[in-house]
Structure formats: C-alpha cells, structure tokens
C-alpha cells in the first residue's frame, strides 16, 4: 500500500435489535396499528422493519391517553418530580447511546460519527437541560406559576430523528404538558426505541405517546380537537398548511421551518477554519439541515483562493457506509429526497451554473449524492432561492459588506446565517443586519440546549431551546 487507505471500520450492528414490526406507543404500551408500511435503510434499501400507519382512531386514542395523563398525573405532579423523570430519561439515553446511534444511522443514513458525537449526546443534553427547568418555571420570565397548554401534538422531521424528538418532548414535559408525537415517516425507529426508554424510566402512562405514520397521520394530529398546542419542525409549505389548519381554533403553534442560509466570507476570514465551516455548513448530515449554509457568499477578492481550497477539502470527504466510523457523508434519507436534490441540481445546470464534485465512488445500492458545489450562481437561480436539503452548495460573490447583507437577506427565509471575519466590529455589524434567528460567526451548525433556535420570516414561529424555547410551552398572558 503506497497511500494511506483507511480500512473499513464498521460500527457493530449487533447492539441493536430491530423487531419485524412496530405498533404505536400509546398509554405506556405498544398498540398494533391497522396497517403497516416498511422503513428502509437508505444506504442499502434493505427493509428494516414494518411501521404502523397511524389512523384518525389511533391519534384519537393517543390524544385521549395524553389528556388523561395530563389531568390525572402530569399536571398535578410537582415540578421537582417531573424534573426527576426527565433526569432519568437523560441518563438512560446516555446509557443506551451507542444503541441509539447505530439505530439512527441505520434508519436515517447519517454517518455514525455524527449520530454518535452529535445527535445522541445532544438529545440527552436536551433532557438534562430541561429537567433542571421543571421546578424553576417561576423564573422563566412569565410570572409565578405559569401554566402549561395541556396536550401537545408534535410532528418532527427525518433529518435528526431522535434529536428533534428531544427538542420537542423535553421542554413539553418540563413545563407540565403531555405529548403525542409523530415521527417522520422514514425515520420512526429511534422514536420507538425512545418509547422503551419511557418504560424504563417508569414515566407515567400516557405522558408520552408516539403515533407513527405519514402526512395523513400528522394532519389527524393537527386537526384533533383535543390538542392544545402544535409543535412542528419541517418544511415551510407544511408549516403554512398547519397555520391555516388551526386558524379557527385556539391552538398555539411553534413552527421550525425551512431555510436558505447565507454563509458570508469576508476577505479577512481565518481561511482554513472558514473552509472547514463551509464544509460543515453544507455537508453536515448530507445537507439535510434546515439551517444549512447552502448559499456561500464569497467576497470577490478571495473567492478563487477559497474555492480552490474548498475543492481540495471536498476531495477529502469520505462518502459511504453510514456505519463506517470514518464516513463523513452518508446516504440521502429517501429516494423522494434524492429525486428532489437531483431535480434542483439539474435546474442549476440548466440555468447555467457550473457544477463541480470531487471524484467519488458512490455505492450502487441505496440513495446517494456526491458533495456538490455550483459556482457562477446568481440570486435569480432556483438553487439560490429554493431549499435543496442536500449536499449541494450554491456559490455567489459580493463586493462590499452592504452587498453581502442585501444578498443574504434577499430570501423569504430567515433561519440562520454565517459570518467569517476576524474583524470584531464587522462581525457585530453583520450580525445586526442579518435577518435570521441564529447567526454563527466564525463557526457554523452549532447547537446547544441552552441556545435558542428558530427563524425569522417564513422560517417559522417561535424558538426552541433556552429560556426562549421553554416559554413556548407555557401560557403567557398579555
């Protein structure tokens, strides 16, 4: 061997046991659904299990269980005791972290390095963080004894299945709400494993209910009259549908929706870390990230230098088996998503942008897309406006800081943005000008339970995480 070829380093699958089929988790136990659909390993197209398709009746049963649990147990329990349950859940997640990580990578296609080092530890951290809030709600800024909404209906996406579950369930439970959660159609398995965690933690029956299914199940949940609050993470299109669906009700909603974040590089940026930040911004989690830095805005006088370094760096990205510990870029989550990425990339070609990918061998089975950049992109290109939700970066240039901000803000989205510069005053100026809920300066794609996350404009309503996110699960007067 003349070059350093990393031998396969697969994480063992043996740690997880996947059942042939799963029911819904309602009132503390598993309940058979009327019909099932397969869930695939997107890296191999192998069927992992059969998942129940939640019906209106299933949702109804789950909401009823959540209501009873709310009235009879959870809302009556002291914050201190609720907090202790959350601590238990956090600990069990830590104890079973490897199992969750492997299952997440199998079901989602994301690299084990990310599920192991990001998704699962952060999910546990969210429970820890919110456990501590449960008996301190008087200090959340809403006055004494703020009240929960009641029963929350939560719908989460497929890009960070367990992490999104934690973002939703932890604050809901800490504040005294009960939960009916619907995982994404293609990634239900870690949510169903989480149901076991609820059992191990001896969580009172009905406090957490999980109904699996597709969009029809989600609609049934949104429309259910027994739901007091909706928490949704997903596309802006569905977010708007939910907003319309609850218009004539008193239901509250938080929506974490799409984004088309600008990642702005000024000519005094720390170059190597910036290149890392660009890579992390768009290729983390295959670009299946609502806050991905999908529009790279380069100051024109350094654009060539950055692009040449970026290409060298992209050639180092290791695409392949999600369970291999050295994989950087895993599988696209579904064939539908792959079609969407292909369609938008073709639009980039057709509109005259220049496509580049490093040489990389993609597996023949499964859903794969090579890391890709498009240069020569303008604001008018579809790939500069529409969320691709894949490992595809659109590169634009700017001449002045003002132009950078104008281009960055020239989108109906407003979730996140990046700034790279070593000049403090310019960073603060740009951070002030950007219309986005999360600004990463000299870093990107960082998440923490203490840090509020959420978007401006059509990227959604409300925040998740931190004190700000907590208050979304409490009634505020005024």
């Amino acid at each position, binding site marked *: 061997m003349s070059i350093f070829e990393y031998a396969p380093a697969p994480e063992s699958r043996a740690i997880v046991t996947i059942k042939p089929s799963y029911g819904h988790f309602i009132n503390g136990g598993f309940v058979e659904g009327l019909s099932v659909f397969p869930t695939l390993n997107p890296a191999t197209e192998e069927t992992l299990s059969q998942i129940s398709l939640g019906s209106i009746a299933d949702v109804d049963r789950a909401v009823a269980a959540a209501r009873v649990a709310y009235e009879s147990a959870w809302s009556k329990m002291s914050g201190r005791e609720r907090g202790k349950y959350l601590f238990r859940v956090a600990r069990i997640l830590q104890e079973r972290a490897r199992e969750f990580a492997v299952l997440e990578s199998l079901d989602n296609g994301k690299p084990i390095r990310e599920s192991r080092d990001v998704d699962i530890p952060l999910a546990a951290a969210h429970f820890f963080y919110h456990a501590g809030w449960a008996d301190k709600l008087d200090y959340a800024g809403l006055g004494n004894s703020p009240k929960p909404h009641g029963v929350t209906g939560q719908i989460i996406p497929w890009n960070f299945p367990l992490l999104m579950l934690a973002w939703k369930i932890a604050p809901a439970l800490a504040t005294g709400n009960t939960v009916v959660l619907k995982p994404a159609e293609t990634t239900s398995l870690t949510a169903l494993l989480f149901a076991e965690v609820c059992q191990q933690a001896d969580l009172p029956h009905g406090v957490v209910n999980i109904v699996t299914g597709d969009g029809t199940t989600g609609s049934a949940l949104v429309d259910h009259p027994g739901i007091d609050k909706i928490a949704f993470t997903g596309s802006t299109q569905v977010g708007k549908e939910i907003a319309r669906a609850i218009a*004539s009700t008193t239901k509250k909603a938080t929506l974490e929706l799409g984004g088309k974040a600008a990642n702005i590089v000024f000519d005094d940026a720390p170059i190597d870390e910036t290149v890392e930040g660009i890579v992390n911004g768009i290729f983390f989690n295959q670009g299946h990230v609502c806050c991905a830095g999908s529009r790279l805005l380069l100051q024109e006088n350094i654009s060539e230098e950055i692009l040449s370094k970026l290409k060298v760096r992209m050639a180092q990205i290791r695409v392949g088996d999600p369970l291999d510990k050295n994989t950087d870029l895993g599988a696209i989550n579904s064939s539908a998503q792959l079609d969407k990425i292909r369609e938008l990339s073709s639009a980039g070609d057709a509109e005259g942008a220049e496509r580049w990918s490093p040489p990389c061998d993609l597996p023949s089975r499964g859903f794969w897309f090579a890391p890709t950049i498009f240069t020569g992109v303008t604001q008018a290109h579809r790939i500069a406006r529409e969320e691709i939700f894949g490992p595809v970066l659109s590169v634009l240039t700017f001449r002045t800081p003002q132009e950078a901000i104008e281009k960055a803000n020239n989108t109906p989205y407003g979730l996140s943005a990046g700034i790279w510069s070593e000049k403090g005053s310019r960073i603060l100026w740009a951070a002030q000008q950007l219309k986005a809920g999360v600004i*990463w*300066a000299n*870093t990107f794609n960082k998440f923490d339970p203490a840090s509020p*996350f959420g978007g*401006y404009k059509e990227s959604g309503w409300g925040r998740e995480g931190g004190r700000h996110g907590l208050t979304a699960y409490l009634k505020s*007067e005024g």
Partner: protein
Amino acid sequence: MNERLEVNKTYKLFIGGAFPRSESGRTYEINNQSGDFIANACLASRKDLRDAVVASRNAQPKWSSATAYNRGQILYRIAEMLEGRKDQLIQEITHIDGVSQSAAQDEVIKTIDRWVWYAGWSDKLSSIAGSTNPVSGPFYNFTIPEPLGVVGVIAPESSALLGLIEALAPIIVSGNTVVALANSHNPLPAITFAEVLATSDLPAGVVNVLTGKKQELAPWFASHMDIDGLDVSEIEEPLLADIKVAGAENLKRIRTFSDEASPQRILAFMEAKTIWHPIGV
C-alpha cells in the same frame, strides 16, 4: 352665545408623515350617538394600505437602528405633546362615543400614562428578554430581541383612543413600524393622535394611520406579504380565522391581547436572534 362659525377639521389619512386623502376619493360619515353628522373621514382603500406599508417599510431601517435611548426620548416627547392635546382628545371621545366627560378623561389619562410606561421599556427590554447562554463549548453565545419589522394594527372598536395607543406603543418602542387601521366608528382621536406624531420627532412612516372599514381592509392587512405581524385584538370570528388563514402565507405573527400592560406585548412583535462566536486566542 358665541355666534362665530367654527372652522371644522378635515380628517385625513396619515401616511409617510403626510396627511393625504384616500387615493380612492372615498369618505364616510362620522356621526355621534344621536346620529348627527360630525365629520367625513377617509374611507381608505387597499391601495392606501399598500402605500402605507411602503412608507412603513421605508421607515424601518432608520427607526429600528435608532438607539433605544433615542426611541425612548421620542416616545416620551409624544406623551408630552399628548398631554397638551388632552382636552381635544376628550372632546373627540365624548362628542362621538357619548361617554361621560369623566370617563373620557379617564381614558385619555390612562392612554398617556400607558404610553409613558411603554416608552420607558425601550432601553430595558433587551436586559430582561435577552440572555447570554452557557453553551457546552468554547463559544460566547447570546440572544437579543430584535424588532419584527412592519406590523399592522386593527384597532379595537371598544375605545377610540386607548385601544389604538396601547397597541402602537409596544410595537414601535422596540423599533417596529406600523400601519394602523383606526376605530371605524370614531377615528377622530386617532387622526388627532397622528397630528401629534406628525409634529413630534417620530420619523415619517414609523406610524401610519388609516381610517376605514375593518371588514374591507383587514383581509388586505392579512394577505399583504410585506406585513410581518398583526395585532388584531378584539377581532372576532369568523373574520379572525380568515385573517389567520390569509396571514399564513407569509407566516405573519398574528396576536390578540387583553387590556393589560405587559412587556410580553412588546416581545410578541420581536424576534429572538442568537449569535455564536468562538472564544480563543
């Protein structure tokens, strides 16, 4: 008995710091409780609304980037001038709404005091609603509230002045700009208030006041894509649901409030922005 003929005021719209008539040329009669004619008010059209939104959007950058201290000073100055117009406002309320002198006086005083209360929040809000967040890593992370942008107000019908003012104050104190639709049966105090604003230091376009019919204009407020938020306190079903459905298109922040002074009312039209930066040498 004074035989002198009074000079009646023409009540117009307030858009971009000017007092135009409705582009539609339409007016409607304002009558008192007994049905006597008091004035012709402009019946604003959707095009007037459009112009007001443009004015409001244009005023956004300057107003939102003014220092909090400056915004507080300007709002307090408005309260000073309101104090001088007290009698006129009381008269406009009693004249049309038929409420007693003392009730009108109470409303005006409450209005002014509430305005002062909100004015003082300008440079305190970030302290109570912002935070530094102890993230797990070498990062400085902080959250600040920022104004939402352009906010629409459909003023309540239950009061001619207070309802409008207690909607406007919390919206603009944070740096938002506003397009407001005045109480339709008595828009006169709203226009008088606009005259106060016009002679205050408030930049043109920060507050725009329309008069007209909410059934006609509210749907246009709701569907206008350049309005970021709506205060529709006292709007009832089914109009409220229609507004929410139309507002979903750009995910407007649509809110209703009770008659209670609260910083939550300011925060309702603000966005939390969180900023991360590494710590290192």
